[in-house]
């Protein structure tokens, strides 16, 4: 009986949160098109989110490319198919692995940061102070951050993908004696628009999800300093789950339109 009640409560809380996040998203779309536009803050957020994540994304991408190539090489060699390495690596990274891994990394770096920052602003009444001074804190803090993540994530993913391919090319050069020119020629021969466009489109949604959940958790944090930690943690967990759901939907839709 108690277990049933607990499950019921958890289900209620889960659907309640989905409803709240949906209203939060609707409010974002309402506010994003109304004046005044917070251009300066948007640019500051783009700089913070983009510039400060480049190193992490590049290192992750580079190691991803290295490891992926090193792990795949023996299997391809077994079938005498090493020459397929650039095509295989580029298609996998550009279509799927790059966007998902980099979005997950960014969910940890950016989503938790937003959750903690807004949560701490909420707890220390900075958001209230903003409202009292005649500023719409939702517009100033939330809209700018969600827009910044939506705009910056595709760029970060493109950079991450490029660095991952560079890492892969280095391994091919060292282990397989394949020149960089030949490697990248093969990469560009293999990649189609149907690989790049859906991946780029879904990366905008990934960015939106990271910003939305991070802001929602931070903005609604209301349990003192413990709540800040919870907001930050929940932002990462919920965003990661949401990223996989978005990815599944994106792959499903891509399959319909591009017949993968």
């Amino acid at each position, binding site marked *: 009986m108690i277990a049933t009640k607990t499950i019921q409560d958890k289900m209620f809380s889960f659907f309640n949160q989905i409803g709240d996040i949906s209203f939060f998203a609707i409010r974002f779309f309402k506010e994003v098109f109304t004046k*005044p536009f917070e251009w300066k803050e948007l640019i500051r957020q783009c700089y913070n989110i983009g510039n400060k994540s480049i190193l992490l994304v590049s290192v992750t991408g580079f190691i991803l490319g290295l490891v992926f190539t090193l792990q795949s090489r023996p299997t391809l060699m077994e079938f005498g198919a090493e020459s397929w390495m650039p095509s295989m690596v580029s298609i996998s990274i550009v279509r799927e692995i790059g966007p998902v891994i980099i979005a997950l990394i960014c969910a940890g770096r950016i989503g938790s940061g937003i959750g903690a*920052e807004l949560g*701490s*602003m909420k707890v*220390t*009444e*900075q958001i*209230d*102070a*903003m*409202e*009292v*001074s*005649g*500023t*719409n804190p939702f517009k100033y803090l939330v809209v700018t951050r969600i827009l910044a993540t939506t705009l910056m994530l595709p760029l970060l993913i493109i950079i991450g993908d490029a660095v991952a391919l560079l890492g892969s090319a280095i391994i091919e050069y060292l282990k397989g004696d394949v020149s960089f020119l030949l490697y990248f020629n093969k990469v560009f021969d293999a990649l189609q628009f149907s690989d790049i466009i859906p991946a780029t489109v879904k990366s905008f949604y990934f960015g939106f999800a990271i910003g939305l959940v991070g802001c929602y958790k931070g903005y609604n944090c209301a349990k003192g300093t413990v709540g800040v930690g919870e907001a930050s943690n929940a932002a990462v967990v919920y965003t990661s789950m949401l990223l996989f759901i978005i990815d599944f939907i994106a792959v499903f839709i891509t399959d319909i339109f591009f017949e993968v």
Partner: protein
Amino acid sequence: MSQEKNIKTVLEIKNLNKSFGDNHVLKNFNLKLQEGENLVIMGKSGSGKSVMIKCLVGLMAADSGSIKIHDFEITTLGNKELNVLRTEIGFLFQGSALYDSMTVRENLEFPLRRHNLKTKKDLNADALVAEALKNVGLSQAIDLMPVELSGGMQRRVALARALILKPKIMLYDEPTTGLDPITAKEIIQLMRHIQTQYKTSSIIITHDVDCARVISNRILLLIDGTNYIEGTYSELSNSTNPKVKAFFKN
């Protein structure tokens, strides 16, 4: 008598109610603030003081009742009108609430930027920031970050920020909480100085009896979300009512 009639009421609360679930925080709360008056509100923690002050500036919506500031009914105002009215109100938060990602200068410029955007008038931000900081004795801290300031300095900067648009009404939420006695005295003196210089009417929420003694024209005791008693400091401190005495004994 005729003098009393000329005193204008700048803020009036009638039958204010606010609940959180089953917890009725404010029950038919009433208040009147006269022009130039310093009204101190005292009460135990959880008696509804902070909730009341947040309802006053529209940070929380009241369940029922009326809040009038300069004859504008807050509870029915739209966001735009409320934001215009908020420029007439300065709010000093309990924990200072300085924006920790901005310097002191940017903290002070923030309300001005919003005000300029809304009124399309360009106020001289540099001069106003310098003046506000000079008034709180912190001109040298203009380019520091809030984290580099002591608790007392943060409170002064927050006060300067609240005053930058020269508000007619000041709301202080426990202005001396968390400060050492000397700094608390300095803040109280500063509040008195501000009242004289800016001719503000103030509502001060505090537990600090010293603060109430020095600054109040009138004290209102809030118990269980309702007006329990009100009077001057000497009236209440000499009261024989045990509930009132409990607040004023050392």
